[in-house]
Structures are given as C-alpha cells and as structure tokens.
C-alpha cells in the first residue's frame, strides 16, 4: 500500500492567515501530530509576501498597497518578494528525516520542484527546474519556491502563476532604480510567464490544484488523502496570525 499523506485545500484567505497556517502545520508535523501534508491555497485580498531577510521599506510601496487594497506579509522563508494574485500557492510540510527528502537543501528544492513539474506536465506544460528555486517554461519563470527547515521539519511553499499582471506588480514593488523602471518592467514581462499565457486559455484554480496533486503523488509515490486542519492547528494558526504575521513588529522587523 502506498504511503498516505494529507491533502489540504484551504481556499482563499488573507496573507496573514495563509502564512500562519503554514507555520501551524510545520509545528504540528514537527511534533508528530499530523502526517506529511500538501496544501493548496490562494490569497484574498491579493498580497505581497517578502522573504524573511528582506526589508519592507526596500521592497514594497506601502502607500500603493493601501490604495489598491493589497496586504503585505513577511514569510518565515527566505527568497524574494512575490505579488500573490492569480496563482495557485502550495505548501509541503514533511519531516527532514523522511526518506523522500534529500538532506541537501538544494537537492530537496529540486525534488519538490519535480512534483510541480510532473503536475504541470499533466496540463501539457513542459517546464524545467532552474536552481536555486525557480521553475521555468521556455526560459520564463512560472513558479518561485522557498524553503525553511525548523525543528527537524521542512516547509516549502511556492507559487504557480495562473495569470500575471506585471504592471500592477510593479506599481506595488519598489525597484532599485526608478530611472530604469520601464525597462525593468519590459524585462520582467520577457522573463515571467503563466499557465494562461502558455496555453492561451484560462485554467481554473481547482484544475491546476488537481494536476499538481497528481504531480506530488507521482513524484513521491504516495496517496494524498483529502483532510482538514486539526483543532490544534487552527488554534495555533489563529495565534500566529494575531501575534506574528499581522503585526507591524514582525512585518517591519527588517
């Protein structure tokens, strides 16, 4: 019998809730209370997440975010700033000692990204893993990923772009040099792609989630069983949201 992991489809939530839930799963998995878990989710309202090491002031135009009703949150994972709008976001939480996860961090990015690649293949999209943490299609980025390891547990989360609005993205993110902003936008338009752009048609969130689910099942030779957050996870998530991810103290700490 195949090993069974938990599948969570938590729908669309705020940035603060989304990041709190990933951390809650990490804590509960590290204590052996929940199985390895793959989660799919989206963002309402749209939001920017920044990497653990980034500075809000350097990366985000906070006034523009307020004007457009876009939230922002600091992740517990490193990596870059991401505008989360029309995308499928996934997370996977699994013990570091699980045989499916390479000890080497870079290799484990590759392994998890392979699951995404297999999922994209289900949609007829041929992508490639581009270390450190990207997936490219025709040389353009369709997915960014970020991993942390805490309490002997791996959390990797990442995005798969369903559609992309580079102009809005750049009205929210700061660029180092305003003078080259237009050129930068053109460059990013050349370097970023989406499922809609590649296939020339819209594919719904649910269909993409189903494909990526199959990708995880194939790559890791497991069965993903639909589940729900435990009571403890919900309590922890509420606590993390309130005490950490929605606070100025956390979000502006760097």
């Amino acid at each position, binding site marked *: 019998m195949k090993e069974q992991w938990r599948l969570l489809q938590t729908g669309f939530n705020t940035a603060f809730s989304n990041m709190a839930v990933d951390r809650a799963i990490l804590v509960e998995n590290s204590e052996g209370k929940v199985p390895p878990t793959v989660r799919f989710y989206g963002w309402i309202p749209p939001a920017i997440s920044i990497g653990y090491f980034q500075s809000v002031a350097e990366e985000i135009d906070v006034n523009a975010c307020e004007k457009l009703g876009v939230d922002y949150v600091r992740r517990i*994972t490193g990596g870059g700033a991401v505008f989360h709008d029309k995308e499928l976001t996934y997370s996977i939480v699994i013990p570091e000692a699980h045989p499916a996860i390479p000890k080497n961090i*870079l290799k484990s990015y590759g392994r998890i990204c392979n699951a995404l690649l297999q999922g994209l293949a289900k949609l007829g999209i041929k992508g490639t893993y581009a270390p450190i943490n990207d997936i490219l299609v025709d040389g353009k980025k369709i997915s960014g990923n970020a991993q942390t390891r805490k309490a002997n547990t791996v959390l990797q989360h990442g995005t798969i772009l369903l559609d992309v609005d580079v102009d809005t993205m750049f009205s929210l993110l700061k660029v180092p040099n305003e003078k080259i902003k237009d050129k930068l936008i053109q460059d990013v338009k050349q370097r970023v792609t989406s499922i809609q752009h590649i296939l020339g048609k819209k594919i719904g969130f649910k269909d993409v989630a189903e494909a990526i689910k199959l990708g995880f099942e194939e790559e890791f030779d497991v069965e993903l069983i639909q589940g729900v957050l435990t009571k403890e996870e919900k309590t922890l998530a509420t606590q993390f949201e309130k005490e950490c991810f929605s606070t100025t103290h956390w979000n502006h700490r760097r």
Partner: protein
Amino acid sequence: MRSQSIYKVPQGKLLKISIEYDEKDNVIRDIRITGDFFAYPEETIELMETKLRNTLIERAQLQEKIRSIITEYHIQFIGVDPEGLTQAILMCKP
C-alpha cells in the same frame, strides 16, 4: 557614516547592505544584511549582523570573520557566500 550597497552575487541572489561605520578607524558600527537569499537557520542572520560589529572593513578580515561566524553557528547560506557578502560590504564604501 551611513552607507548602502546593492550587489548581485555571481550565480546567486541580490544582497542589500546597509552599514554605519566609523571613517576614522574604518570599522563597522552597525550593519543590516537584507536581500532575497536563503540562510539556515534564518534567525542566525541577526547573529551575523551583531557579530560583524567592530570588524575592520577590509577584505581578508571580513572574509575570515564571516567564515568563523558561519562555522561557529552552523549557518548554511544559499545564494550568497562569504566572498559575496564581503564584496557587498566593501561596496558600501566610496
């Protein structure tokens, strides 16, 4: 004196350094290391910042200090290395 730099590590990530340094004795008073890199465990970046205070802004000394902090606190960097971090700090000076 306050100064900043932005440096793309070759084959790596973007480092943004902000330092406060003493022009007379050329040492770091305060430093903040930001960017889209990865470091494990993440919290050690704050340790790195604290430990780099009072370090002479000179390539060999910076590299040695950074290497020793990495070893002592078992830090794993991805997308940045001691050479890249050193270079970014040196670039803060005119």
